[in-house]
Every structure is written in structure tokens, then in C-alpha cells.
């Protein structure tokens, strides 16, 4: 699959990364190159093969009691926030 500029623009928006117009073409080429290369996988017959969804093998996900085990320190949570106010993270206005 070769990517065109419009597709790269779309993926970049999905990934929320600004890409300048002049970067679209070289990026499309680079990404297409990688995609062509990974498409070699299509030559392997994987019919009936289960996808590997866990590396930990048959290990069941551990369960714990459903209760609060951590927290209660908003100042620590906020300490690295680029902009905060009154115990909240501040973002540009979302709702008019």
C-alpha cells in the first residue's frame, strides 16, 4: 500500500501531530517504504493461527479487591502540569 499526501495528512491528524505541507511528500514516501517492506508478511499463510495477544502465556490477569489503593495527593498529580489552576489542569477552551 502506497500512501498519498491526503492519507498521511489524515493519519497525522489521528495521531495529533502537526505536519507541514512540504513535509507530507517525503513522509508519504518514507512511510510507504516501510509499509511495502512489512507487507512481506502477506506471503505467510496464517489461516487457523490464533493471534498472540499475551506474552505471559496462560497467566490469568490478576484480580484485586475493588477499592481505592492510592491517591489523595492532588498537588503531586499536578506538579508537572504545564498549566494548572485551583487543583485542575488547564487546557484551551473546548466548549463555547
Amino acid at each position, binding site marked *: 500500500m502506497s500512501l498519498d499526501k491526503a492519507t498521511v495528512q489524515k493519519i497525522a491528524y489521528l*495521531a495529533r501531530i502537526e505536519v507541514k505541507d512540504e513535509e507530507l511528500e517525503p513522509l508519504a514516501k518514507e512511510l510507504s517504504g516501510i509499509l511495502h517492506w512489512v507487507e512481506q508478511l502477506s506471503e505467510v499463510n496464517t489461516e487457523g493461527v490464533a*493471534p498472540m495477544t499475551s506474552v505471559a502465556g496462560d497467566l490469568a490477569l490478576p484480580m484485586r479487591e475493588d477499592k481505592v489503593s492510592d491517591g489523595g495527593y492532588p498537588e503531586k498529580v499536578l506538579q508537572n502540569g504545564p498549566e494548572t489552576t485551583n487543583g485542575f*489542569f488547564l487546557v484551551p477552551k473546548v466548549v463555547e
Partner: protein
Amino acid sequence: MSDVTRLTMTEALALLNKGEVTSVDLTKAHLAGMESARNLNAYITETPEKALAMAGESDKRRKAGQTGLLEGIPLAIKDLFCTEGVQTTAGSHILEGFKPAYESSVTTNLWNQGAVMLGKANLDEFAMGSSNMTSYYGAVKNPWKRQGDDRDLVPGGSSGGSAAAVAACLAMGATGTDTGGSIRQPAAFCGIVGIKPTYGRCSRFGIVAFASSLDQAGPMTRTVADAALMLKAMAGHDPKDSTSAPQSVPDFTKSVGASIKGLKVGVPKEYKPDGLSAEIIGAWDKGLAWLKEAGAEIVEVSLPHTKYALATYYIVAPAEASSNLARYDGVRFGLRVPGNSLDEMYMKTRAEGFGREVKRRILIGTYVLSAGYYDAYYAKAQKLRTLIASDFRQAFERADVLLTPTAPTPAFGLGENLDDPITMYLNDVFTIPTSLAGLPGLSLPVGLSSDGLPLGLQLIGRPFDEETVFKAAHVMETAAQFKRWEAR
């Protein structure tokens, strides 16, 4: 006392126990070494005050008779591990100035065992790279150079700062992380020992995530015995990481020096691609001969899906990365570039905060997970992963441990292999299959190339059988007598 930075951890611990040296002495010597070797750029952040305070505390504990496994040993910590109150960058501009409010579980384990932190080691941005050249904080130089050639070489990556620091004696050991070879390849390039343990052996809590189904922490040291000791201190079940294995940690140090009589060592026939350098093949043959001499039996095994591992990895890892790196949004931590709307702020922040390789991988990952393409790419790669893991399971029915090269070449020059991403990706062709299968893999130096650079071999074990890997590694280490750091 001659230069204490040349000691192995095991030797240093013996001297500390005898009272012939203190942790403060060891730490001061390393801090001085770090200062004079800043040109290597092995550390992003040095923490001399913290180091001396930790060393002082360690000396007090020792006097009081309380000694941990690594009591008083100064270490470098890859700057991917969150360290409370100490800048943690992941090699990225987007995390510049980030001071975590918590400590990673692996470093907590190390401090509980008495280790001392010298600083945070440089790495490829978000651990994405095989040369350390993608770090926002600059490339790291390999302490090794080709004979009669003054050009700088890469230390490998992504744990390049960790490997360079240990090889140049700027730390007695270092933590690394490995997603597709990021401990083993730099260990090979810098002539040191590095092990990626079984997936689940070390907690991932507090390690900046790249690809969560592949990421594992491990030790990088100058000897096999040191790696066994340090892994023992790092490993263990952690309720904060649901993929950390609820298994007890064996005393890996007991494997060092154990007999390998009757051990079956597998040689995967697919690991000899056309064009593999004769020197690498020569080192490999030598390694097999040493194991045979020690009583092992060599068997050929087949891993038929090996040639698809790299492409599988470059779907799975970017897909997971695109999801993991969504958290860098300019809201809760790190860089923020203002914008007129929330979306514009996200887009500008991420455009400026991420480097080229990271953006490339996020975009590939986003594409392969996007509607309409998921089955063709991601689901296909997951099936290949099943086949690759099953290749190893079958090989381990015939063999107890596998021996392969770690990397297809010795260290290359700073700035080389940058034109085409796929050329760079090929560095990890021997390490990635192990990662996809979640198996333990150790790299150790076995000799020098004709132009004087370290060559590494990789031992691969069954899940949670690092002990066999350490046994075989120690036999090879003893035969190789690779101790070049002592003279450096």
C-alpha cells in the same frame, strides 16, 4: 588502591566487606571519571549530590551490619526509569524537565538492595533506535574506536548511554531496557554483558512505556557474575504491573560457575543469512567450540519464521507505541506549545516535542491500527508472532539454550545508517525474534574484530530459565578472557 572504577561489582563488594574501601570512595571515583569523560555524553543528568548522600547512607548501613545485595555499588540508570524528584526525559524534548512524583519499581528494588545512583543515562528517544543517535540530548560516543582510526563510533541503542558508561567505567553497572534488542545490541557494541530477562521477570511499573508487550528491564555489567547479581536485585513480582510474573526469583549467582556437562546448545540454521560477516561467523564457531569443550552437545535447530520477525516487530511495536505515546498531550506533564484550540495545542506540542523517528513510528502505528487496515497489518502481525513463538517452543524441545550472534556487525560510525530506516532496523535482526517470543536473551563479548572492535554472542533461554543462560554465559566468558576495560 589503584583505580577502583575498574573493579567488577563482585570485587568491589568483597573490598567493601573487608572495609578496604567505602561506598563514598567508590562513588567519588566514579563521579570524577564521569566529569572527565563528559565528551562521551553517556549521561543526560548527573546526580552527584544524591549519589554521595546515598553512598554515605550505605556506608552507615554497612557499619550497622545491614547489607543489601548491591550495598554501596554505584550504578547508572537509563533515563527511561522514573526516579522520584530527578528529571526523567526518555531522551525526548517532550519530557524535558519532567520530575516524576514516584519511583519505578526496578529502581526501588535496587535502592532497597543498597545501590547508589550516579545519574541518568542517555538513550535513543523513547528507546526507539539502535545507535543512540535519536536522543534529543545528543548522540553518545562508543568508548571503543577502530584500531588506527580516530572516527567516533555509535554505542548501539537504545541503551547506548548505559552501555558506554559501563564500558568506560563510569558506572559499575547500569539498568537498560530492551524492546527489540536495546540491551543486547549496545552490550555487544561496547564489549559488555547485558541480559534481557524473560518478559514478566522485572516490573515495568515506572518505566516510560514504548511497546508494552515487549518492554523488559535488565542489567548491563562488565561480567556475567555481576549481571546475575544485579538481575537478582532488580527482578521480582510487582502488584503494580499486571504482567509481572508471580514467580519467585532464583539465586542467579548460583548458576555462575555451574557445570554445563550434557547441556544441549541449539544453533538456529536461519541465523546465517547470506552476507553475514565471516568474523561474526568465526566468533560464533569459537563460542560453540568453548561450550563443546565444557561438555555441551551442539544441535542444529530450525526457526523457520525468523525472516518475518523484523517486519512483524515493525508492526507490533509502532502500534503499541502509537497508543502509549498518546499520553504526551501537553496537559499533564512535559512540553506544551500553545494553540488556539485544544486540538491545535495537541498537534503543535507533539510536532515540536517528538523527534523524527518517534513521529515516524507513531504514524506507522496509527495507520496499521486504523479502521480498515487493522486486520491486514496488526492482526496479521499478531498471528506471525504466534508462529515465531511456536518456532522457539519446538527448538527448545531439542535444545536447552540457543547460541547466535547478537548483531550482524560490530559498532558502526556515528551518522552512518541514517539514510534508510530499514537499514537501521536490520541491526536487531538477531535480537527481535527473542523479544517477540518473550524469552530471555543475554549478550556477552567473546572477542575482537580484525579492526579491534568487540564482537558479541547471544544466548537465548526458555521462559524463566535465565539460570541456564547464565551457566553457559559464564563458561564462554571464562574461555574468552575478554577483560579489556581493565586496561582502558
